[in-house]
């Protein structure tokens, strides 16, 4: 039997005009943890989705245990012993843990049998779950355990984990990665997709680095250093990309621009998402929000941006607050509209009478110029722009549209290093110009790099722990900080 559990060779994949993968390769040895490293947009997830049969490669080969394979769908990959734990959980919220794990089986479905099998597997792997709990009632960490059990329940010999620490607190992340090491000690293979250098160096045996869809470095983790990996990931492109460490600027009590007092928000289902939150954001400061997804940060951001109504409490915000939502495709832009039409969205609700298209066109062209948006003209459709350029336009529209306050939700999501740097620069510039800025990112590093104040949201309550990694991590989990 081959030493290499999974080999992907010269994989090429194109989506229309976009080349996602260009001759990418990976060789994962059996019994190891293999880290697949790369910045956002490098092609890591695409490569692994091909390995899992969710996508077909345009060219290249896949070999499992030395045998060439071709996967028409995940069913084939699962049959070949490959399991995948996805970044965005592939669980059915309305169904129970048992039903989710049993999904994809054959024949008749006996709830009691399934339940027993799950409890056995759970004991064997040390991942505790309650088979009759409904997914939508479980916190992110528990849901991830279910995802992992689902992957392991099918006689999996190669386990792919896609950014598994993205939704976890620092403590939970460490536990998960340790668990991955335990799993491979039994002869299985784990492939860890991550953009976090430190995790790769600490927990992996081998590392493969992808940049712009190609493999640029591969070898033993013991032979790698932070510098070599960074150089491989970025390709020596120094575009001022280092996240600037912000020193605490003495905010001489600038005016309060955004103010929440005892604000509570109850959602449509009657669940309280924010509990008596009091928060003030001043002109010329950046407040960062740290939270584990689902703890109320989504609601907090939208209340601050004036996009969500509160059930009780006092909200004092300017008439127009700039908002950069996480899902830019759906919430920030109308993909099939031109850039000019998208800029026209600004203030669309209060406009009366006739649209002054000439003026809006001029405004759009200014934005394109000032914010370095790579687009032929203002009549181009938003859809034809790259993610980074779309985001630059959104950032420009929102900053210019408000001038006083800006709320950003995962603003660098899905962007490469250059675009991320550009967005960060804009956010800092907005702060320098005296705007009140609130930024949330599921990447704690990004929050700490930009914000001088950090507040934590946990179970709908807001606290402000000391501005350092450990304390914030504990606060995110609702643990006492000391």
């Amino acid at each position, binding site marked *: 039997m081959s030493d290499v559990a999974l080999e992907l060779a010269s994989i090429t994949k194109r*989506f229309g005009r976009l080349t*996602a993968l260009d001759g990418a390769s990976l060789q994962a040895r059996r019994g190891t943890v293999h880290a697949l490293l790369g910045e956002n947009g490098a092609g890591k997830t695409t490569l692994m989705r091909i390995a899992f049969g969710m996508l077909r490669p345009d060219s290249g080969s896949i070999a499992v245990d030395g045998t060439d394979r071709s996967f028409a769908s995940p069913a084939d990959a699962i049959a070949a012993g490959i399991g995948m734990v996805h970044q965005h959980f592939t669980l059915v919220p309305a169904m129970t843990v048992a039903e989710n794990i049993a999904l994809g089986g054959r024949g008749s479905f006996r709830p009691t049998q399934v339940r027993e099998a799950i409890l056995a597997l759970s004991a064997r792997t040390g991942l505790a779950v309650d088979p009759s709990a409904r997914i939508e009632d479980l916190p992110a960490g528990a849901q991830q355990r279910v995802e992992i059990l689902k992957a392991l329940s099918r006689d999996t010999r190669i386990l792919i984990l896609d950014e598994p620490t993205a939704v976890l607190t620092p403590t939970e992340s460490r536990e998960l990665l340790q668990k991955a090491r335990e799993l491979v000690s039994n002869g299985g293979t784990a492939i860890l997709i991550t953009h976090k250098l430190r995790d790769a160096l600490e927990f992996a045996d081998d590392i493969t680095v992808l940049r712009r869809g190609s493999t640029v470095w591969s070898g033993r983790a013991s032979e790698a250093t932070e510098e070599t990996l960074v150089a491989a990931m970025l390709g020596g492109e120094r575009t001022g990309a280092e996240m600037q460490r912000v020193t605490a600027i003495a905010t001489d009590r600038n005016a309060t621009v955004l103010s929440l007092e005892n604000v509570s928000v109850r959602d449509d289902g009657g669940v309280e998402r924010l509990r008596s939150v009091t928060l003030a954001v001043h002109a010329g400061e950046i407040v960062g929000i740290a939270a584990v997804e689902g703890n109320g940060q989504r609601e907090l951001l939208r209340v601050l941006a004036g996009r969500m109504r509160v059930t009780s409490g006092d909200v004092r915000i300017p008439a127009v607050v700039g908002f950069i939502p996480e899902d830019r495709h759906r*919430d920030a832009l*109308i*993909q*099939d509209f031109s850039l000019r*039409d998208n800029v026209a969205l600004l203030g669309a*609700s*209060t406009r009366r009478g006739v649209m002054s298209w000439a003026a809006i066109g001029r405004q759009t062209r200014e934005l394109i110029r000032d914010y370095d948006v790579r687009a032929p003209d203002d009549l181009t459709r938003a859809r034809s722009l790259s993610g980074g350029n779309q985001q630059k336009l959104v950032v420009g529209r929102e900053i210019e549209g408000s001038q006083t306050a800006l709320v950003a939700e995962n603003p660098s999501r899905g962007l490469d290093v250059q675009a991320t740097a550009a967005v960060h620069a804009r956010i800092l510039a907005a702060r320098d110009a005296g705007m009140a800025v609130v930024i949330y990112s599921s990447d704690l590093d990004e929050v700490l790099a930009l914000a001088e104040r950090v507040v934590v949201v946990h179970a709908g309550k807001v606290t402000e722990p000391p501005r350092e990694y450990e304390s914030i991590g504990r606060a995110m989990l609702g643990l006492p900080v000391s």
Partner: protein
Amino acid sequence: MTETMAFVVDMLLHATPLVITGLAVALAFRAGVWNIGADGQFIAGATAAAWVGVSVPAGIGWLALIIALIAGVIAGAIWAAIAAWLRSRFGVLEVISTIMLNFIATYGASFLVRGPLQEPTHVYPQTSGIVSGAHIPILLGGTRLHWGFVIAVALAVAAWWVMKYSATGFRVRASGVNPFAARSAGLIDVSRVTAFAFVTSGAIAGMAGAIEVSGVTFALYENISPGYGYTAIAVALLAGLNPLGVIGTGILFGALETAAGAMQRNIGIPSTTASVIEAIVILAVIAIAQLRTNRVTTSA
């Protein structure tokens, strides 16, 4: 009058209700509202116009027409408002509610023309003729072609301008294409905007019914709409939901229906063939549009 001339007149006569209902449907679809109830709204408008036409004193002259048309617009708006309210308040799928309302409108009209509004001899299921003051003037002497066609074209042009240049039109378009971005980035009250578009759509379809009664039938009877509301869907989609395009496709389908009627009379091919062709047109438009979208969409 030559045969071609007769055909053109018939075509434009058929086209008038199709252009107006096509406009109504295009407007609704543009706003993201699946108004399949143009037929029921048409019937409501026709009923209201007929009721005005047989109830007003003859002495008020052409004022009768104005009142009848306004009544038709209001009736169509109300009929659509029922579905709009069910949609925004209860989340009822408008495709189902508007179709249900089509049936209810049909039975309502049937009841009226066999009951309270029936002509005095109580023999035929229809109203008596509307007063002459409620008739739409003839456009082309010696034919049945009336000014309703001009109203149709004028409405279409107005609708095109509003969609393209007015703030309201922009809000409607944005809400229809992407309600999420409209709400989040544009702060648009999507619920109110789409309800407004829905009701306006009904008003326009009601106008079509009122014009049909005031210009062609001069009375209300059962089956006043031979399915205009459904043909309107083909008219609207083929025009790419563009109000100006609707003029063209409305005339095209007017020609189709005229030809179908002739075919049935002369060759015996059932006139329902026209509805088959209309349905195929809709399917073809959907298929082409979707194939284009599928090629462009990238998934990663």
